[in-house]
């Protein structure tokens, strides 16, 4: 008889306990996923259980409109954009709290994680009342199935963001709940976010002093670049920083921060290497063309410094390590280093590992702030040992 040598399970491989090496970790972007039904591939299921009768009927009869990039780019590299090792026994990645605990929260020793429900990416594409019913159902499901059983989890409030009044109502319903920490919109909106069409959302967020955020995803009906529709997923995915640039330009130039001076925006998953040059370009343009936007009382970069935070994943990977230090230096000048929030994007393929993603060029003290302190300060989280 030959005894097999011990095999290692990839999921339980505790090759390291990150927390002991990194200190506390707050993961500012992780995903729970309701079920296959939300992808429009089948009917019924979990979401139906959370809808009132009128919308359950509608949902089971007509489903959801799905004009998103999943349809346009059927070649998403693999696995519905998920890590290979995040699939539960049944259901899509992100649908199983037990697996999320085991291979993510426990493995890395994560103190707090903020859920951005994946199903939100379709909500901007539904008509207003339907979108409102769906997002309410989604929020109730997140609360019951994720936040209540798992004290380390927090969540974003999903809103029907293409109808600002209905979105504001959902903000009023949930913003004061201690486990809902921000309002979630998707990056691909119908109009740039500075548009007055969205201002009632901002008014509600300001009233409750809750941060707003945008996350990758959505389908506003526009070609996804200012140069028209590209052909490949790699262009869609690598093009997100350009979408975030358009939103920052719009939010600043259209005067949102003069109208709502306390707003805090979290730009999730859009990168951060573009912030310096965009500030330089905005400031020069303001000196040149400021008469067009007399409502701007300050330099554009001043608004950028004051109102925006950024999650780190997918981490910037410059060509040479020293260039990350150069980038950090520029961000320091712009007071952005205290606005970087560590995130993993679990369970997606472009996941950032808590112990490896932040490069060595980031000084230890900065690293601690990025991993937990900045997020604790922004969201008012009480985390042990936070610097």
């Amino acid at each position, binding site marked *: *008889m*030959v*005894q*097999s*040598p*011990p*095999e*290692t399970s*990839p999921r339980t*491989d505790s*090759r*390291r306990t990150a927390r002991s090496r990194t200190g506390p970790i707050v993961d500012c972007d992780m995903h729970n996923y309701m079920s296959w039904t939300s992808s429009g591939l089948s009917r019924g299921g979990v979401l139906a259980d959370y809808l009132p009768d009128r919308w359950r009927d509608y949902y089971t009869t007509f489903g959801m409109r799905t004009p998103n990039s999943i349809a346009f780019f059927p070649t998403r*590299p*693999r696995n519905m954009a998920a*890590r*290979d*090792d995040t699939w539960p026994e049944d259901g899509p990645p992100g649908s199983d709290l037990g697996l999320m605990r085991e291979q993510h929260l426990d493995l890395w020793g994560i103190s707090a994680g903020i859920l951005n429900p994946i199903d939100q990416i379709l909500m901007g594409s539904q008509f207003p009342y339907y979108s409102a019913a769906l997002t309410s159902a989604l929020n109730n499901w997140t609360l019951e199935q994720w936040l209540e059983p798992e004290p380390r989890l927090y969540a974003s409030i999903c809103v029907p963001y293409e109808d600002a009044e209905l979105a504001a109502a959902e903000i009023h319903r949930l913003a004061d709940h201690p486990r809902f920490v921000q309002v979630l919109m998707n990056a691909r909106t119908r109009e740039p976010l500075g548009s007055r069409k969205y201002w009632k959302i901002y008014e509600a967020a300001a009233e409750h002093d809750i941060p707003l955020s945008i996350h990758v995803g959505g389908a506003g009906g526009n070609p996804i670049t200012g140069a028209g529709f590209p052909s490949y997923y790699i262009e869609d995915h690598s093009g997100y920083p350009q979408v975030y640039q358009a939103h920052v330009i719009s939010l600043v130039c259209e005067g949102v921060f003069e109208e709502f001076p306390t707003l805090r925006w979290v730009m999730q998953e859009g990168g951060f290497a573009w912030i310096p040059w965009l500030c330089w370009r905005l400031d020069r343009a303001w000196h040149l063309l400021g008469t067009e936007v007399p409502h701007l009382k300050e330099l554009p970069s001043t608004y950028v410094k004051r109102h925006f935070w950024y999650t780190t994943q997918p981490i910037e990977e410059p060509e040479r390590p020293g260039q990350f230090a150069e980038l950090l230096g520029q961000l320091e000048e712009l007071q952005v280093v205290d606005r970087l929030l560590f995130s993993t994007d679990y369970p997606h*393929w*472009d*996941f*950032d*590992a808590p*112990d*490896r*993603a932040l490069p060595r060029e980031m000084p230890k003290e900065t690293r601690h702030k990025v991993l937990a302190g900045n997020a604790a300060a922004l969201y008012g989280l009480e985390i042990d040992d936070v610097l």
Partner: protein
Amino acid sequence: MKRYVVCQTHELPPGTRRIVDIDGRSIGVFNVDGEYYALRNTCPHQGAALCTGSLLGEVRSPCPGEYRYDGSRKLLQCPWHGWEFDLTTGQSWFDPARTRVRPYDVTVESGRSIAAGREGVVPGPYVAETLPVTVDDDYIVVTP
């Protein structure tokens, strides 16, 4: 140099892999069409369990619209970020000179030669002293 007996050959048939812990290192051992390969199970990028990734053929193209698929070349794709590594050399597709994962020698040896105490062969990680080796079987041996 120590060498490690992983298992009997029939326990790793073609198309399968096994991830074992050898001297504190996680190593993936593969049988591809009767050829054996072993790579360190850690992606040099962000540390994913590389050897749990998909084995894919090579895709190249001289220009848009033309696809040259070579199924005889085996590329191991990281389960996280999708970096591709040549299973035979551990070299990455995108930067073979500088971005690599460590390969290990794999050999098949008879139980007889192992039982004869060929120098340096440790019969099985962690279970060395309890692993009975039968002389009539063949074993997969990894040299770290």
